[in-house]
């Protein structure tokens, strides 16, 4: 940390001949261990340090990603020279954060696990052993990663910050084989400390046990069904269905979108509230300051079915004449900040899971998932799903994709359970937008019943 502090004290951008400039400093300690079928095939620690310079002049941006700080004066000269050759751009009147030095170092104790590898290797070994004892196992892969990261920032307006985060994750992939049929399962969990990651694996034996029933499960008859999402699936749904649509950079210079996204518009059922919040420490979307120096905020995107907010960088906030929300984020020092989510989740309702099942006869329950994507149409690929009969989970069923139009689906949310669970998506998974992936984010929610969805 001292090294980054020294850099922030040494660098002075206040005299730069441009409207604005900032420099991000990033230092990471990563480790990665992978076992295949009980043997180590990857065991590495990686150190990285890099810088990202951003300069605004004549309404245009110049960005430069590099690793040698001694080159900063040359980088600044190149930036000014390149920007002087461009015709005037439209990024003006941006209200950048000013002044203040903030220091938030909270996770340095958790980095000890990077030093002593015994605990993590034991954890991998225990998980591998559990898999090896599974009757139908054909292949297994256990992949563990951890990271301790320091992020520093200095701007020409006098804004400075330094903060840290830690991130731990493990992903297990397994192939079960019986009578020429194969089921490929996975279990992917994260945490911001090692003990918590181990806790997240308490339910893995149960999932592994359930998996064997999917080897020969029938495929769903494609059609429209009532669908109940698990907390994990609802998190991906919140992220893919509405989170991305709330990112304000999609609305810039676009009258149709601005009209469609007027605050106060009814966009979902009355029970639906969707929130983005980067201030939650115990999460993988923890972003106390975004990569432009804006402090984290809790933003209601939808409150009781009504459009209530959107996610901003300083740039989109200026262009749409709204407040920045602390969502200007970059994956790492190789990229510029763009509007991204932090922790996005659907707020709780007041139903029990049993009540949801009672309301979904002939429906499908989406339990574990492989992933999801979304724009105006979203799709979620379930890993495990069940039919619902007589108010109970019934048969395991193979589902390739659950898909729908975002707004139609939001208006069809019928019921929510009472407990929210937030998932980590960082070391494995994460969010992708354009070229920038994977960004660490969090997502979650309660269990959720949607009256009708396309299932195939």
């Amino acid at each position, binding site marked *: 940390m001292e090294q980054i502090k020294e850099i922030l004290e040494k660098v002075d951008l206040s005299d730069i001949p441009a409207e604005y400039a900032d420099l991000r400093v990033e230092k990471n300690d990563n480790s990665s261990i992978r076992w295949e*079928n009980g043997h*180590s*095939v*990857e*065991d*590495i*620690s*990686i*150190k*990285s*340090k*890099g810088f990202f310079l951003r300069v605004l002049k004549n309404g*245009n*941006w*110049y*960005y*430069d990603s590099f*690793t040698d700080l001694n080159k900063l004066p040359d980088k600044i000269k190149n930036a000014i020279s*390149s*920007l002087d*050759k*461009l015709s005037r*751009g*439209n990024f003006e009147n941006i209200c950048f954060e000013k002044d203040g030095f903030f220091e938030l170092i909270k996770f340095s104790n958790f980095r000890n696990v990077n030093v002593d590898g015994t605990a993590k290797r034991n954890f991998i070994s225990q998980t591998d052993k559990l898999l090896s004892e599974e009757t139908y196992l*054909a*292949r297994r892969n256990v992949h563990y990663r951890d990271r301790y990261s320091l992020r520093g920032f200095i701007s020409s307006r006098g804004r400075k910050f330094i903060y840290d985060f830690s991130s731990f994750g493990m992903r297990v992939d397994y*192939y079960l084989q019986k009578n020429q049929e*194969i*089921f*490929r399962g996975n279990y992917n969990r994260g945490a911001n400390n090692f003990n918590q990651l181990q806790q997240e694996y308490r339910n893995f034996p149960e999932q592994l046990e359930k998996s064997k029933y999917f080897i020969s499960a029938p*495929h769903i008859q*494609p059609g429209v069904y009532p669908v109940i999402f698990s907390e994990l699936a609802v998190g991906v749904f919140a992220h893919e269905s509405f989170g*991305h*649509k709330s990112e304000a*950079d*999609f609305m*810039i*210079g*676009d009258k*149709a*979108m601005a009209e*469609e996204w007027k605050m106060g518009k009814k966009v979902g059922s009355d029970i639906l509230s969707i929130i983005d919040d980067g201030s939650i420490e115990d999460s993988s979307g923890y972003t106390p300051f975004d990569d432009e120096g804006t402090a984290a905020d809790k933003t209601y995107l939808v409150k009781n079915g009504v459009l209530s907010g959107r996610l901003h960088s300083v740039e989109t906030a200026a262009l749409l004449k709204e407040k920045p929300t602390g969502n200007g984020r970059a994956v790492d020092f190789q990229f*510029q900040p763009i509007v991204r989510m932090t922790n996005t989740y659907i707020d709780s309702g007041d139903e029990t899971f049993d009540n949801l099942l009672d309301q979904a006869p002939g429906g499908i329950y989406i339990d574990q998932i*492989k992933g*999801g*994507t*979304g*724009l*105006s*149409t979203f*799709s*979620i*690929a379930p890993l495990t799903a069940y039919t619902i009969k007589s108010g109970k989970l019934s048969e395991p069923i193979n589902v*390739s*994709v659950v*898909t729908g*139009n975002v707004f139609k689906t939001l208006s069809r949310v019928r019921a929510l359970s009472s407990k929210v669970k937030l998932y980590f998506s960082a070391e494995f998974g994460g969010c992708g937008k354009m*070229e920038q992936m994977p960004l660490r984010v969090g997502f979650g929610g309660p269990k959720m019943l949607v009256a009708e969805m*396309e299932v*195939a």
Partner: protein
Amino acid sequence: MSEVIEKTKVEDNEISVEIKGSKIKGVREKAITNMGIRVFNQGLIGQAGGVGEIKQHDLIEKARKNLSIPYSYVFPQEDHYKYIAEKNLLPEQIVALTEKLLNSLIGKYPDYIYSGKISFKKSTKSMNTNLNLDLIYSDYSYDVNIMFKQKDSINIIDGVALFFHGKLYDHDEIISQTDILMKKFSDTLHIKSGFYPVILLSSHPFKAKIASFLSADLYHQGASLFSGKLGQQLLHEQFCLFDETFDPDHNMVRPFDGEGVRRSDSKLALVEQGMLKNLLFDLKNAHLYNSSSTANGSRSPFSGVSIRPNYLVMGSSKKTLKQLLSGYSQAIFITASIGGEITSRGDYSFPTIQSYLWEDGNIVGRIENLSVSTNVISALGENWIGCSSDRFFPELPEGYFVFKAEVKT
């Protein structure tokens, strides 16, 4: 054997221009070096890696202290290889290309908003050891990815306006893509759900799934749908699939793998006339299953080895797209789709973003809200129509991929 030290270095340089709201938003330069060290000693491998200004000596010491990965195979001892494709550009040159492309797009189709990126990338990968292994290749490419949306659309994007990946940047040829991608976008049509020929610009998900079935470790562990079926006819009798390591004219340059292995023949037949011919091997699995590495030991400077294809290419038919579809009056031409995962059994469903109705060799209008359901094995088997001889742009490795599938509106 005494200690062997292996160094892998990847240097990436990039200039890119970002487009937002039909205007240039900014210019970015990037110069990043990743370095990975592996130390082989007493049957164990130690690894360490770093990004940026990291001392090689420190990484070697770290790797020496981290000997933990067992190995019992023989790795390449002596080899020299060099391939350098050289080109340098300045940021203002990429800006000029972008301005010209944007002006052409706006001039041709003014009722749309454009966003995306144009970039020029150079990547150099080297690998050397103290056993006289000295391998290097360097390649460059232009990448164009521009999306569009109608000005009155409430979607984030409506489709792909242009895409290109290659060395021969030709403005007129790239802009001519809009005739396929955008010309009929505003003419909306409706079709009935049913079983149609489907045309895709890229067969990537299908090829990748088949290749995963042919990974030697999965195959021999019984985790592949093709386990035990090598030499059998499982796919359409005209379907061929190759793993390619070196075809610079079609942007496929990976002359050595992550273990320093080079293949004598750049093209490896995986499937020929529908018959499974070969598996993909790295050094460890080649040793384990009494075979030879096929130069498919994939590894970044920071990872362990995994079996992965280099570049997968479908064998092209002698027929053009129009000839392939000569017996069909209608087909669905999909130029952009989203999501969908292929299940363990090969079932695959995906919604489309941008799709058109093709009638008698012409795109006649756009069809909204389609989803396609198929199975990878049947799409490359009984429902296979072909891979055309003509390509969306000349530097693409293969032609249009055509198969029959359930299409739902």
